[in-house]
């Protein structure tokens, strides 16, 4: 059984499988696909967050007043795998200030505030058209140093992913071009307009990972994409790259679901696709890798979809990291009169932003402005009627209504036993719930409660260990002291014994002497107590 698994994984994409549940959502993608790609103009000021993915904030490498060139490193992460933050244009640093950083929590963070000089002057680019002969070490180094993260929205450092995959035998690279969330079309536009970058990125990544082949997955209805990718692949004769069209079911773009669709296998709980010899990366990430490795350009801009009924002219833009969202909206004709909610990401999993002064970040694949009619009205939550629709659509095969009940009743261990941590927060259950229970919010709450509970238990465990260690140490000391006393006693006893024996010998010697001198006396003395027999 165990040996069959990798074999099936090696056939990834040969036939398509199903995943449990999911939804057929209205795509709403066409509205942003008509307008041609455009590079957003330079704003008066860029706010580049030093924290754009999980982990620690980067350490700023620049000081106020310093002039920087486009692509210059302005922040460095402590972890070597996560690399640098780069200046998105040339200009001067006007401040290092805490401000909104487009974080899901809405928190503030340190930003490098950059005033563009309008020249947009690159640093000296170290192009490497001969990358194929440079070895995997060079490729990995370039990927790490160029600040590349997963551009599908999860922003996991790509360098780290590539380095980690080194441990497993990777046979297939999966490039994810399945944008299953409604409205988002930036990957579709990228593949349609720049298929060459995606293919080059695939080749570089394939080499860096030591993979034999690449599968580019796209949605069924992306006919134009299939054509443009196919043309490039055919012209260059890359027979290691295949384009696979999969039916668009939300949340098929999720890594776990995509792997299941392509292989029929599930990523083991707590595991990674690399356990099956697979690595999943977003197509935009691949294009960024191509730019970084071949042209030497670090990640300073990305394609972003500006869409929704709250925007006048939805379209896709090349936007520099750090551009305030307001200026990107202006670039699309501004808000329409009924704009009601600003979302980073899609309508199912994106997070609402409180202000359009938040800067563009690497995670932003879509900036969605929904109108009043599109968002869920504030409505009373009804009790769960156990209809089971949530379980039917759950791609992780969980029982959301059971988890909801467990979290509400603070049965966190039970919820953990029922797989709360396997929830991918796709929102399918929320969408179908007739009682309008905010299930995903409950699950996020439950997960954070579980984390704090685990931390608390960890602290209690440490305290217990400390207490036990102290008890053991005291016991050891007590024991040692007792032993010392014993030894001393023994030594004293030995001393007394020695003295007694010496005295006895002396006595005997004396007695013998006496006897020699006086043979009549001493018979009685010879029978002295315990003659040890040896002098």
């Amino acid at each position, binding site marked *: 059984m165990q040996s069959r698994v990798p074999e099936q994984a090696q056939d990834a994409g040969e036939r398509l499988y199903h995943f449990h549940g999911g939804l057929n959502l209205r795509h709403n993608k066409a509205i942003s696909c008509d307008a041609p790609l455009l590079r957003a103009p330079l704003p008066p000021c860029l706010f580049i967050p030093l924290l754009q993915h999980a982990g620690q904030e980067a350490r700023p490498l620049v000081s106020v007043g310093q002039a920087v060139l486009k692509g210059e490193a302005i922040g460095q992460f402590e972890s070597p795998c996560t690399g640098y933050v780069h200046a998105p244009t040339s200009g001067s640093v006007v401040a290092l200030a805490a401000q909104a950083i487009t974080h899901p929590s809405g928190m503030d963070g340190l930003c490098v505030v950059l005033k563009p000089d309008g020249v947009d002057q690159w640093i000296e680019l170290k192009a490497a058209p001969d990358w194929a002969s440079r070895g995997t070490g060079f490729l990995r180094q370039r990927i790490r140093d160029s600040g590349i993260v997963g551009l599908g929205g999860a922003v996991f450092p790509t360098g780290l992913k590539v380095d980690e995959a080194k441990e497993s035998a990777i046979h297939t690279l999966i490039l994810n071009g399945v944008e299953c969330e409604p409205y988002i079309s930036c990957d579709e536009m990228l593949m349609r307009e720049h298929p060459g970058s995606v293919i080059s990125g695939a080749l570089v990544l394939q080499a860096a990972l030591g993979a034999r082949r690449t599968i580019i997955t796209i949605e069924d209805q992306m006919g134009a994409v299939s054509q443009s990718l196919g043309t490039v692949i055919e012209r260059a004769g890359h027979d290691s790259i295949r384009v696979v069209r999969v039916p668009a079911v939300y949340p098929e773009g999720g890594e776990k679901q995509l792997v299941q669709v392509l292989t029929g296998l599930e990523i083991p709980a707590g595991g990674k696709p690399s356990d099956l010899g697979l690595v999943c990366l977003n197509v935009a990430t691949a294009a960024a890798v191509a730019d970084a490795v071949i042209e030497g350009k670090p990640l300073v801009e990305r394609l972003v979809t500006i869409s929704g009924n709250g925007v006048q002219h939805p379209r896709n833009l090349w936007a520099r990291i750090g551009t305030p969202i307001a200026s990107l909206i202006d670039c699309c004709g501004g808000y329409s009169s009924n704009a009601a909610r600003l979302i980073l990401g899609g309508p199912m999993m994106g997070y609402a932003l409180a202000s359009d002064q938040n800067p563009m970040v690497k995670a932003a694949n879509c900036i969605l402005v929904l109108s009043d009619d599109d968002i869920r009205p504030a409505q009373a939550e009804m009790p769960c009627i156990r209809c089971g629709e949530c379980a039917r659509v759950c791609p992780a095969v969980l029982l959301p209504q059971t988890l909801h009940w467990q979290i509400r009743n603070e049965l966190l261990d039970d919820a953990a036993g029922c797989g709360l941590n396997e929830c991918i927060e796709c929102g399918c259950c929320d*969408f179908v719930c007739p009682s309008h229970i905010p299930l995903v919010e409950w699950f996020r709450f439950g997960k954070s409660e579980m984390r704090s509970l685990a931390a608390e238990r960890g602290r209690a465990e440490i305290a217990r260990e400390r207490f036990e260690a102290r008890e053991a140490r005291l016991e050891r000391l007590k024991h040692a002291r007792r032993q010392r006393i014993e030894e001393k006693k023994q030594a004293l006893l030995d001393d007394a014994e020695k003295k007694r024996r010496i005295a006895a010998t002396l006595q005997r010697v004396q007695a013998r002497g006496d006897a020699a001198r006086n043979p009549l006396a001493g018979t009685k003395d010879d029978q002295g107590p315990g003659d040890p027999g040896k002098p």
Partner: protein
Amino acid sequence: MSRRFDTGGAPHVPAQGTVGGVMLQVLLALCPGILAYTWFFGFGMLFQILLSALLAVVFEALMLQARRQPLGIYLNDYSAVVTAVLFALCLPPLAPWWIACLGMFFAIVVAKHLYGGLGHNVFNPAMVGYVVVLISFPQALTQWLPPLAIAPEHLGLLDTLSTIFTGQLPPGLDWDTVSQATPLDTIRTSITSGQTVLEARQSAVFGDFGGRGWEWIANWYAVGGLWLMWRRVISWQVPVTMLGSVILLGLAAYLADPGSNPSPLQHVFSGALVLGAFFIATDPVSGCTSTRGRLIFGTGVGLITLIIRRWGGYPDGVAFAVLMMNMAAPLIDRYTRPRIYGQ
């Protein structure tokens, strides 16, 4: 230049349905069956439904008031009306008015609100109400009407109304001429008196494959039920396993001894089996939620119904079977959790 927005948790798009919407679809799906019932058995059932629904809404409102729950939201979910209609469909069309009062009191006040209201009841409220009146007043619950086609006397609209509210038949009629045993009753009494099922089937209360009239009402219930299934308001597991288990086991018994066991079709098309399979046992609140759990639940209801029909003290057993499986549902759910992705 800067603009602020209200925030909210994902998903941001409106949810698909509402509880009220689900219940309304159930009511709509019951309509063909109710019309067929009226066609075959007269106006009695319409009055029972209206009376029960009215009482259910009144009890629901009173209990919501007492429990300090918002009236508007909960009355709009139509769950009380669904309970009332299902309860009424179990009654004989001429059952006296206080039967509905008592049944609805136990259904809405006791079985539903004393257990915590919508979504918290352990037992199917309609079946609790029905079983209470069935056990307490067996006499009133056995006065069934024959189909109009074979009835010696027809009651008009006003006569029906006055019979329900006064308990007295119009002058010149007595219960012996107006009422008649149901097909299931007929089979039961004839088997106990030593007749075979085939002999019993000579009675006019039997139709082509089930009870006369009943078989067509059942068909119309099934049409509504299939529509609900197509609309994904109910899942296929419970109806299929419930009807399937009755058909399979009924067929086995029939083949083994056709003299004392009615054919499986007779089982399916008489009594409350089809109504139960599509509308009662599929109640999500008191049933199982997992897929495998629903398979077990439906099979259980089917088997217990058959056992009660064959050996129990009542001619039909759907209500008891549903309540018994309601008791088992939490345990079944506990042991039929699906395998989680990756585990």
